[in-house]
């Protein structure tokens, strides 16, 4: 992924998705502002608070919104007003509505036929199997649970094996087991060279599927790349590390003497340490344990979750 703000992560030779200074506004409201990035094969999570511009960005990529300024390219061309691009794009919109009067099979098969596939029947059966909806395939979608409708939508979007898959909150309404299965499916597709961009407000999902993220805040790209690398760049925000040892109090006393350590706290039968430099601290903790004569049983960065990264970027 490449991006202008801030550039982190791997370079991809031929990006499937490319935005250059893309902007979209509605009257005086700026929904997306000067966003630039490119994506190759893999799974990328699109993060941002409500109103950040995630759906607008996905609609621009899907060709349903023309950029007010800048360039939006999918597979090397503008998706706006070019229906032929949909041979290579699969879209799962956020809105729940699906043709309630069709069965799951009829819906997925319809998608295959509208894609012009001659083998629509077998492709529909295969797509339904991929999302684990075989048992309900011959029931009307109107009788489906929210999670089942989501899976039917995903099956309809991937039935033609698109090169680029755009998903707006795809895990909404799915139970944990369905989510894991869907995540595995997206990772498998990414492994097969597909470019997958999905938005989600559940940060665990993004963290679980892949490490690449785009963070939109107030229409601007606040960060992009590997979220752990982004976290490492946040030198103005201390890292928190939880340590368990054979003598926590003694270890805490030793660590307090080190200038790289901002704060030390004893809580929940562990030592919580704040430091500015994670890599330096890894060396410090080894020396401190030897000095204090204690045995380390656990050293865990406590705030490396995507949520902490996201919170930090949004509040910055």
């Amino acid at each position: 992924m490449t991006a202008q703000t801030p550039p982190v992560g791997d370079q991809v030779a031929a990006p499937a998705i490319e935005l250059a200074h893309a902007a979209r506004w509605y009257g005086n409201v700026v929904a997306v502002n000067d966003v630039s990035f490119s994506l190759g094969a893999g799974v990328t999570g699109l993060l941002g608070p409500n109103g950040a511009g995630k759906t607008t960005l996905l609609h621009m990529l899907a060709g349903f919104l023309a950029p007010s300024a800048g360039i939006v390219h999918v597979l090397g061309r503008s998706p706006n007003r070019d229906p032929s691009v949909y041979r290579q794009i699969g879209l799962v919109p956020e809105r729940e509505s699906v043709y309630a009067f069709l069965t799951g099979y009829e819906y997925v098969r319809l998608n295959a036929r509208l894609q012009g596939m001659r083998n629509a029947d077998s492709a529909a059966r295969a797509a339904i199997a991929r999302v684990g909806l075989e048992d309900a395939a011959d029931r009307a979608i109107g009788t489906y649970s929210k999670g089942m409708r989501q899976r039917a939508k995903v099956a309809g979007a991937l039935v033609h094996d698109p090169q680029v898959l755009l998903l707006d909150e795809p895990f909404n309404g799915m139970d944990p087991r369905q989510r894991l299965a869907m995540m595995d499916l997206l990772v498998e597709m990414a492994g097969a060279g597909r470019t997958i961009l999905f938005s989600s407000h559940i940060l665990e999902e993004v963290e679980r599927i892949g490490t690449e993220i785009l963070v939109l805040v107030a229409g601007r790209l606040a960060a992009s790349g590997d979220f752990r690398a982004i976290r490492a760049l946040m030198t103005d925000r201390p890292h928190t590390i939880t340590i368990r040892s054979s003598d926590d109090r003694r270890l805490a006393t030793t660590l307090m003497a080190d200038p790289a350590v901002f704060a030390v706290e004893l809580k929940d039968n562990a030592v919580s340490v704040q430091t500015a430099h994670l890599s330096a601290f890894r060396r410090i903790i080894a020396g401190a344990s030897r000095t204090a004569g204690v045995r380390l049983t656990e050293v865990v960065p406590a705030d490396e979750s995507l949520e902490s990264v996201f919170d930090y970027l949004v509040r910055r």
Partner: protein
Amino acid sequence: MTGSSRTGSLAAFPDIVWLTFRQQLGRRRTVLLVLLAALPPLLALIYRAFGQVDVRSFTDNVFDLVSLTIVLPLATVLFGSGAFGAENDEGTIVYLLAKPISRWVIVSAKAFSAVSLSLVLTVASVLVAGVIELLPAGADGASATEAYVAAMVVGSLCYSILFLALSLFTRRALVIGIGYSLVWEGALSSLLPGIANLSVRQYALGAADGFFQLHEQAARLSPTTALTLSAILIVVAFGLATWRLMRFEMSGSTD
């Protein structure tokens, strides 16, 4: 799963027609329309029961007042505006548009669905009523039936495509369509004769006039003029609908 074996954009036409039929026929309003369309045959049975075979009276009171003024506009506004309206309201239109299908193919399939449903309903209604009441009246009755079948064909084509196009520009196509029929074609046309040039009802009556001499006030356009204006309306409405669909944008979201 492979997309290597593909057909062209036109191959989607029957699938969109099938989808639209399923959409339209599953709605409660379609049942109400069928009941409404049964009214002319029912009135024909009542005429027969009373032994009246008066071609002029039946065409004026049933074909003109019920079939042309009520059944035709209602059927076409519901099927025409509903072809895209339901997709727009429910947000399912995105599943059609996110496909490699030319927009004119989508409009053609939707228009075909709306027109054929309107045609079946309105023509069958007039035809059955005519067979019951007018055919026993001989050649005059047969001409009157043919005339109003022609009116239903022209009216179904023009109204359906007009209301279909309208539904792509406004979510209030149903209200505007009914308003157009009642106010523009009903109240205003009696005050301003020039409105005939912009009235689908007059196009339909003009076509009917080619088969059966309507009374003096009914048809204000000659059959040729009516058919020419109908063709222009259909082409313009179809073009506008396609143009609009090509510029379709998802409703404004700031998220």
